[in-house]
């Protein structure tokens, strides 16, 4: 091996040091071991880039659910051991009177204001989200542990509410405030994920519409898609029987720059998490600021839960914009 200039050796040393220094606080953001093993256990193959964010969120939620189930089972076992051992702990009257296990049957999530249409981009806004947890009657009460996300699952905040014996609902409120950006990335969909006493997901909550970009009076804006929001119907397939025929409707809403000249929006839609796509287009009139397009998946719900998958659109023209990928929550049983 030929030797190089001594300064090149020094340069090499410095580069080694620089690379080490620049990466010494980069660590995995997620529990990769759990995610990988979850995906292996589900027999999942490696998919395309677009699918991964959703998959990793789904995998994380799945791990969450498995952990929550285990926690629930352990909590129930511990409760049983306590009661059986000495009969103390919870008041005897409560234990005798309650026969219904403490569970969360569903969670609603509402956002106020429900729309930001007409608000000026750049203006300040605040949003109040109210989660309502539904509990069967005649339970002994307990704590509901959950996490909520304000950014479509990219991060979440854990919290808990305590439910009194016999109560059939509990509410929890959280807020978010900030300026409405012109790229419409805020607010993002919010969601509540109950982890204990059982696993339940709320529907996503997102104020409808989008802020209006401010332009000079009389100025004609560009023909530009500023963002695309997705909705899916039904929002959940939890509780449906596998094998049941179902049609899922995905609706993309294109948000356009104000005072635009109109034109044709060309895009691809996907119903399988981006693995395949179909070209489509919608034409908008001058000055129109939103346009919608719906597409569907129909079939029998497979027992392996491979469908329905997340749907979304990839806009190619007049500019490149992607929607988020959204599919019904839950799984058939």
């Amino acid at each position: 091996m030929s030797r190089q200039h001594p300064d090149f050796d020094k340069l090499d040393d410095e580069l080694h040091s620089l690379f080490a220094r620049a990466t010494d606080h980069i660590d995995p953001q997620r529990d990769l071991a759990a995610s990988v093993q979850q995906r292996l256990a589900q027999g999942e193959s490696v998919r395309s880039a677009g699918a991964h964010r959703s998959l990793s969120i789904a995998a994380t939620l799945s791990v969450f659910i498995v952990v929550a189930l285990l926690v629930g089972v352990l909590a129930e076992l511990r409760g049983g051991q306590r009661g059986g051992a000495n009969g103390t702990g919870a008041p005897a009257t409560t234990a005798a009177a309650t026969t219904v296990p403490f569970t969360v049957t569903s969670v609603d999530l509402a956002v106020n204001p429900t729309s930001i249409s007409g608000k000026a981009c750049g203006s300040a806004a605040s949003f109040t989200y109210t989660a309502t947890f539904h509990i069967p009657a005649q339970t002994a009460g307990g704590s509901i542990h959950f996490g909520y996300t304000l950014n479509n699952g990219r991060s979440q905040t854990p919290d808990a509410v305590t439910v009194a014996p016999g109560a059939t609902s509990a509410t929890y409120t959280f807020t978010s405030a900030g300026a409405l950006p012109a790229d419409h990335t805020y607010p993002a969909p919010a969601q509540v994920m109950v982890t204990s006493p059982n696993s339940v997901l709320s529907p996503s909550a997102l104020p409808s519409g989008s802020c209006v970009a401010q332009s000079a009076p009389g100025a004609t804006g560009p023909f530009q898609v500023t963002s695309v929001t997705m909705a899916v119907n039904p929002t959940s397939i939890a509780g449906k029987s596998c094998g049941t025929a179902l049609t899922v409707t995905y609706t993309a809403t294109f948000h356009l720059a104000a005072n635009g000249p109109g034109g044709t929006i060309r895009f691809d839609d996907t119903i399988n998490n981006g693995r395949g796509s179909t070209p489509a287009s919608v034409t908008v009139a001058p000055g129109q600021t939103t346009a919608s397009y719906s597409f569907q998946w129909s079939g029998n719900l497979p027992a392996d839960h491979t469908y329905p998958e997340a749907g979304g659109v990839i806009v190619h023209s007049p500019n490149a914009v992607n929607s988020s990928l959204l599919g019904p929550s839950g799984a058939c049983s």
Partner: protein
Amino acid sequence: MTISDAQEAREDVDAIRRCQQGDIASLGALVARYQTQGVRLAYLLTGDHTLADDIVQDSFLLAYRGIRRFRLGEPFGPWFYRIVANRARQQLRHARSLREISLDALSPEDADTRQFGAQADAASARRSDPAQRAESAEAQTALLAALDTLPHKQREAVVLRYYIGYTDQQIASTLDCRLGTVQQRLHAGRASLQQAIRRRYPWLMSALSTLSTSES
């Protein structure tokens, strides 16, 4: 090889053998050992922390699926990093073809977004330990910006050399190309990196000033 290295190599062999017998749980030991360096490697190759996590997650999945072909006794690291590098290349190619690297992290037409991501990480680092880590975070931002100026093949070679510490031969093996090709890529990549650093981030490395003086 230290005693610790030897111990880890034995543990790797045990974990790989159990994986080859279908024990998914044994993959956990390999993930624990190689995930951090894998994520850092993928991060240097892509500039996107979240994508790097995805790449490494996929790479472990691919490694497990191909583990029966792995020859026991060979080091796991180079084999795994080869998968990571290949997966990173596929993901970047795929993202470019779809024009959608990311909805929430990486914007292909805006390299500043990458810098923003790095700065966000930098901000996070500063929050956790401001005195020691601010410099590291700044180095990260600058290095990523400098790496962005390199063609991907040069970037792969440079990252494998200066982050993983591979020899030319090991890089050739990892990237499945000829030794001469690696040497060309390294030479060009190092020169471009040096130029980018000298122009935009001269404070990063003291050797550059010495080198530029001795070159002229």
